[in-house]
């Protein structure tokens, strides 16, 4: 019999990543300067590297650099309406990217059963947890669904590209949404049936195979996060201190 199966819970705890998502969301709203957003981006890139998500880090760094270049370029050519609209879009992306990155970390580093257990231990009602878990499970599949639909649109001579979307927004959305909704409905049904047949319900307490526990080192991670966030906010409202340090 194979006794080498590793039953350790993944670390840091799911709650650390959830905390990170919340903190980053607050920070992107509170501190919106370009420098501050860049600091958030850099911090998350470091966390991703620490978690060995190298391919993801490279992808985000490349994307960020492309955005920076585009932004500078827009200032150079300066065609008022274009620069305005695209510039706003770029700024919006700068702002959303840290939250997206934090979410990716949560998604990649937490398995769904550990997430459910962590939420249960936080005394969140199960009526909320189960739908949340279904959504969490569904997100990674959406990508594949969209790719399939895109291919089939192409073969039917309907243009699913960006230009096509601008030229015929209503048709494209309609042609995209109908199969996506039908597939999603079907998938959600099958998923729920499978979960019920595996004994998931709202009343009975679950146990954990891996022993999910919020330990001291998880607390340390959260504290570091909180202190870093506090510093950023402090410097945002009292920029004078920043100048003193620098």
């Amino acid at each position, binding site marked *: *019999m194979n006794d080498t199966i590793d039953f350790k819970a993944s670390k840091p705890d799911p709650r650390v990543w959830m905390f990170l998502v919340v903190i980053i969301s607050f920070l992107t709203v509170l501190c919106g300067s370009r420098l501050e957003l860049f600091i958030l981006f850099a911090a998350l890139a470091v966390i991703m590297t620490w978690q060995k998500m190298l391919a993801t880090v490279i992808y985000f760094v490349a994307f960020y650099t492309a955005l920076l270049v585009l932004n500078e370029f827009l200032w150079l050519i300066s065609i008022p309406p274009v620069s305005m609209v695209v510039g706003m879009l770029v700024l919006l992306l700068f702002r959303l990217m840290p939250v997206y990155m934090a979410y990716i970390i949560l998604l990649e580093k937490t*398995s*769904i059963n550990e997430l459910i*257990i962590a939420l249960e231990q936080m005394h969140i009602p199960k009526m909320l947890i189960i739908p949340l878990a279904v959504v969490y499970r569904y997100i990674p599949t959406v990508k594949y669904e969209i790719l399939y639909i895109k*291919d089939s649109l192409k*073969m039917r001579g309907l243009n699913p590209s960006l230009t096509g979307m601008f030229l015929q927004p209503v048709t494209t959305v309609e042609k995209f949404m109908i199969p996506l909704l039908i597939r999603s409905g079907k998938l959600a049904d099958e998923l729920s049936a*499978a979960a019920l047949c595996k004994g*998931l319900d709202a009343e*009975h307490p679950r146990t954990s*195979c891996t022993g999910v526990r919020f330990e001291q080192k998880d607390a340390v991670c959260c504290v570091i996060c909180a202190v870093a966030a506090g510093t950023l906010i402090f410097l945002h409202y009292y920029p004078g201190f920043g100048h003193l340090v620098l």
Partner: protein
Amino acid sequence: MTENLLQQHSTMQKKTIIEFHDVHVTYRNRNRESLTGFSLNVKQGEFVVLTGKSGCGKTTVTRCINSLIPNFFDAELQGEVFVGGLDIKTASMRDISRRVGSVFQDPRSQFFTLHVRSELAFPSENYGIERHIMQKQIKKTVHDLHLNTLLTRSIFTLSSGEKQKVAVASVYALEPDIYVFDEPSANLDETGTDQLLAVLSILKAKGHTVIIAEHKLAYLKDLLDRVVFIEDGQGKEEFSGRDFFAKPDQWFRDKGLRHFDGTALRPAANTLETQAPLLQAVAISFGYKRGKPILNGISLSAYRGEITGIMGKNGVGKSTLLRVLMGLEKQHRGEILLEGKPASTKARMQNSFYVMQDVDYQLFAPSVWEEILLGCKESSSIVAKAEEYLRFFHLESYKEAHPAALSGGQKQRLAIALAGMRNAKILFLDEPTSGLDGENMAKVSELIRKLAQEGRCIFVISHDYEFAINTFDKIFSLEEDGRLTRLSFDNNRAECSTQK
């Protein structure tokens, strides 16, 4: 003879574990009964296969056994169903599920977590089993079902056969007495089916009760104790495995069942290689960014009116080959010629039509009639053509129906009709018969032949030997090294042999 009697005696003594007594089931959104007075007794340790045409009610029977009816599906249930001594009308879903392990048709949507290890633990966690017991049971499962190599994998990286294996394993850890399967082999290739068979043999050897609703029965030949033939919601006839497989071919055809032992079927022999090829691939290679090439110097020619079959293991790159040929991907090396001239991806795409494995992705319109006219310029000739196709494809009475409300076979037929509506010279179909019964399979085969006779060149991916041998003019197998070998059918065997 005496052995037979002894066996009978020992099953007589075993207690009945599943009992259906005059059961009627009506789904709320359908106006007719899906089960009409169905009765069945299954003894502990029996291996029972339910079969019949699509829509005959066999899936409904499995849903009663795992009590998704009445707990999950909106359906009215009359009569009595006892599973492991529990009345499904009063027992909770949770109590039934503890005794019944369920495995479904689509391996993509039956996993709740995204990793093999956490999926194995998921049901036990739901039942609040203590950690050290759970870990011991998971270790036992991994050992019994030989899962060591899969344990650390992500669900997305598993082949379909491996997914079904994991699906069984995740309920195995809870040690239920009864296992119920709904068309578990529908999406599997030969290797996958073999893997499934191996797991089923283990379940039977351990004395579990197994109930399978299935179209393709040949692979279960040596395992099954009893076949229940269901028609119009009733258990019409029951056979022992030996009696069932001894039936003449005509019987299977009359009942709309699949039947394949390879003896009575002959390959369609059409040689069209005298004319100039319509599509030619010359030494094409292709691979995604990293890893080894999927297509490695493939050359082939396809002619008007010809149906080319492409077979090979799951995940070997058959769909990729089709995507390159039809222009959704660009080949890295080599050339693709259309009517003798080099063709760009765009030119190929304009001349092609693709019927995907999952036709749900391809149906956009609110009704069958609008669907079939979608993307066509409306004129009287087009309308006449659309009507002709709907008639020929037996869909004319569903003109106003929403495509999502059609059955699997009807959707597949509609998607093939769409292909006929477009004036594409080349047609690509991916697994058009997965999950179809014998009757629908024969229809699909006939339709594909019609489209070919109209002068189209057709490529079909399939794992379905019964369908392949009756439909294809020429068969290639895509190998793991990215090369293509031409196959020929051996009349006396279900397997193909390689032509030198």
